[in-house]
């Protein structure tokens, strides 16, 4: 396969839980991301899927150093981001940007669209004044908005249009990696397709690499080249789209895929669902050994004792399970 753009190695992120007013002491930890390893290749879209609270957004944010990892390495363009600080990190950040989930909360309501999109250009000293304005106009055109909207405020736009503004802002610095954190889940069904098509067009046009974080497995299959499935802070399976959807190996992936409804009543009638019992355990006290064992239909003694190794079962198809 092509060149590796980003390597994530043994990434760990804990959030401390503190008690006390003045002398705060740590009383526990949220194990948000616990030893996650994967690569992203240049030009691909890697999907990161899982249920709420499984650590997929934390992984995305930690990659961009919006959270500093507790341990692990994140190698981007040859440098370990974890070691970088200040100006050196800022220079790297130009190359990696983020699109956020909530198009209402992620745009400053007091700034015009022009100010929002030109801010990264000014902050990074790339363009200002008329040059910046011309660039904003170009970006607005690129994401399918009328460049005449430059002086409007975010509240004058619909959800889908706002998400386009967020995309324009992310593209202002001409990044190579864009982390898309559930970019369509806040949008109406009829608008989701517009934004997805736009992201696809931009990828072809600009050669972008996406880390696409989502919980909608149908959409992920549509968009992504490879897919990683997370459960309670760990990646349980990673593979090419076809392998992962046609022959899922991990019992969690199998249950997850079988739970997603298909908009076709005839197929729905014939499908066999794998119903998982219970809920996702708390990430403060995750189960020992395999994280999934408390809900797993195949669980055995070894699953409680040993953490399953993340193994490559066939070329490019990785799974962490004792029973596969």
């Amino acid at each position, binding site marked *: 396969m092509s060149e590796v753009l980003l390597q994530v190695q043994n990434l760990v992120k804990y959030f401390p839980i503190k008690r006390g007013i003045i002398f705060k002491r740590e009383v526990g930890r949220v194990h948000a991301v616990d030893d996650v390893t994967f690569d992203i290749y240049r030009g691909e879209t890697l999907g990161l899927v899982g249920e709420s609270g499984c650590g997929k957004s934390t992984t995305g944010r930690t990659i961009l150093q919006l959270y500093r990892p507790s341990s692990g390495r994140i190698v981007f363009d040859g440098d370990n981001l974890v070691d970088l600080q200040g100006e050196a990190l800022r220079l790297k950040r130009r190359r990696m940007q983020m699109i956020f989930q909530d198009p209402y909360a992620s745009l400053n309501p007091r700034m015009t669209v022009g100010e929002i999109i030109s801010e990264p250009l000014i902050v990074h000293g790339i363009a200002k004044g008329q040059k910046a304005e011309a660039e904003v106009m170009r970006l607005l055109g690129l994401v399918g908005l009328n460049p005449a909207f430059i002086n409007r405020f975010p509240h004058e736009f619909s959800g889908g249009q706002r998400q386009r503004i967020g995309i324009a802002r992310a593209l202002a610095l001409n990044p190579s990696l864009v982390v898309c954190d559930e970019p369509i889940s806040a949008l109406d069904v009829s608008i989701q397709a517009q934004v997805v098509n736009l992201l696809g067009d931009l990828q072809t046009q600009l050669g972008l690499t996406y880390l696409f974080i989502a919980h909608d497995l149908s959409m992920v299959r549509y968009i992504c080249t490879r897919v990683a499935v997370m459960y309670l802070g760990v990646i349980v399976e990673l593979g090419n789209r076809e392998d992962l959807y046609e022959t899922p190996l991990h019992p969690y992936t199998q249950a997850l895929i079988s739970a997603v409804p298909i*908009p076709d009543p005839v197929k729905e009638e014939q499908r066999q669902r794998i119903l998982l019992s219970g809920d996702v355990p708390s990430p403060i006290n995750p189960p020992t050994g395999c994280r999934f064992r408390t809900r797993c239909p195949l669980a055995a003694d070894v699953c409680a004792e040993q953490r399953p190794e993340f193994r490559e079962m066939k070329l490019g198809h990785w799974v962490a399970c004792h029973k596969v």
Partner: protein
Amino acid sequence: MMSMIRLIPMPPGKITAGTAMFKGRDLLTLSDDEIRDVRGAEIAMIYQEPMTAFNPVLTVGRQLIEPLEIHLGMNRRQAQQRAEELLGMVGIPNARERLNDYPHQFSGGMRQRAMIAMALVCGPQLLIADEPTTALDVTIQAQIVDLVKRLREELGMAIIWITHDLGLIAGLAHRISVMYAGYVIEQAPIKELYAYPFHPYTISLLNSLPYLDSNRQRRLESIDGLPPILLDKPTGCAFAPRCKYVRERCWKEIPPLIPIDINHHVACWIDPRSGKEHL
């Protein structure tokens, strides 16, 4: 649906026309006392946000017992017993102890189960479910859908399931009505609608969805324009501004819901297969 069981405050809301017949009685003309006897007893509702639908400062048990006492006139002991059975029926383990828990001590899926238990308290004949799984993860959603189907079978109640998820409803409903801007624009048995969608909006909606079981790299169809603003009553078809088959007539006259087949009703002037007017 909220208007139908008179949950929309009036004023500012107003029901200006129509009837809603339930077992031979028009719900819209009942007195406040009469509708209160129907609501919660014969027609029950479950909501989208299980957290906000419960009172956070009362235990789940207290909230389950209340309708048993009010609607069925049970005493505290009987009500307690029944509440326990109901929680067990919706698959909550240790029902007796869980009755003393507050809603925040339940997980999202369990809260939704508890809300279903609350809706079933008086053995309703009609259950209105307003996007009850939208806030849940898919594996939990599958559990809830499975539960609802089982209860529908066991208790023989009718269900109106409100949703925007065309995948979910495909495996659950017998018949489907598609609404747009306050109008029912298409209505058909479930298989008929997915196999032969007729209204341009229904067709676009189905084509805008990705399918879990296919790699087909067709471009997703996007519906241009924006969802409607309901301030002004449209003078023609509400979908006209976004419709690719739009004709003169669509702007001027509101299309009525008319049958195009047995059980299949559509409100559209145009036959999208030929692009011509079919009325």
